[in-house]
């Protein structure tokens, strides 16, 4: 119990420090690498929450692929962030109010991991009871994603496909010397 608390505090402290550094820095190369570190720390937090599949998605996409794509974008544009004309006090105020509102909203939430939470009383017991006999798949998450909610996952796959098509339409497979491939 104490051990996981220490790990959580450690990860959250590093996460907050990384976020502050990202907000303060102007060198976009450093910001990109810090964002990658941020993703890796978030992946660590997901592991402590027992969500390993989310953790390695975050590590591979946030820490890996998107960092590489950001670096590619940086190489095409500029590596220094422009200095803001005036300090954006209004934006800071808005963020503070929104953040305070979100924290206020969590006060009413059930305790972390509480078995009485509404989410555990709705369809979850049904899935847990039916998934293995109906699908033969011990991993309930997989059964829900691919079978019970197969429509959603088909939609998500189509979203990824169309996102890739959009990027390819915008960028194309141009060669460096200008020739089309």
């Amino acid at each position: 119990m104490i051990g996981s608390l220490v790990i959580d505090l450690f990860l959250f402290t590093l996460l907050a420090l990384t976020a502050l550094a990202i907000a303060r820095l102007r060198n976009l190369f450093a910001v990109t690498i810090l964002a990658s570190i941020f993703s890796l720390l978030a992946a660590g937090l997901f592991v402590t929450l027992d969500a390993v599949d989310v953790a390695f998605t975050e590590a591979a996409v946030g820490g890996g692929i998107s960092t590489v794509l950001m670096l590619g974008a940086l190489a095409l544009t500029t590596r220094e962030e422009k200095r803001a004309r005036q300090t954006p006090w209004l934006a800071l105020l808005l963020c503070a109010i929104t953040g305070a509102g979100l924290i206020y909203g969590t006060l009413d939430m059930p305790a972390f991991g509480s078995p009485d939470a509404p989410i555990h009383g709705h369809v979850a017991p049904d899935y847990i009871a039916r998934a293995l006999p109906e699908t033969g798949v011990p991993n309930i998450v997989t059964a829900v994603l691919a079978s019970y909610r197969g429509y959603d996952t088909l939609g998500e796959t189509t979203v990824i496909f169309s996102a890739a098509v959009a990027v390819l339409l915008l960028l194309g497979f141009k060669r460096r010397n200008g020739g089309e491939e």
Partner: protein
Amino acid sequence: MSHHLVLRVVANLLLPFILVFALYVQWHGDYGPGGGFQAGVVFAAGLILYALVYGVDALKKIVPPRAAIILMSAGVLIYAGTGLLSLLLGHDFLDYTGLAADPAHGQERGILIVELGVGITVAGAMIAIFTAFAGRTPDIEDKDW
């Protein structure tokens, strides 16, 4: 970056494990954590690591841009095709009950197939996007970063 000896050796050591782990996540998704999406991104991340060390042209030799486009379309077609197949077998769209004699076994088979479709689409899309980005970026000397 192939002149970085340490980087190249470490990448060579890691690559087989990354790719095998991706396949494990794909085929073991019924039992362990993960599934098609995770497998696809891990596989693509492995190939992107290869491209970072050996250059985009080396990656294009393994996965030509056209192949990446075909892969990402094939995945969606596999998924939607499974739905159509279950329609033809007399069940609802994406109800895999009819894919085997035993309903539960049919579900298991259907889940395996659509997860494979997801994995192929995700890996193909990531590689295609990376190749498109990298093809536009001029080579940068180490000192220029």
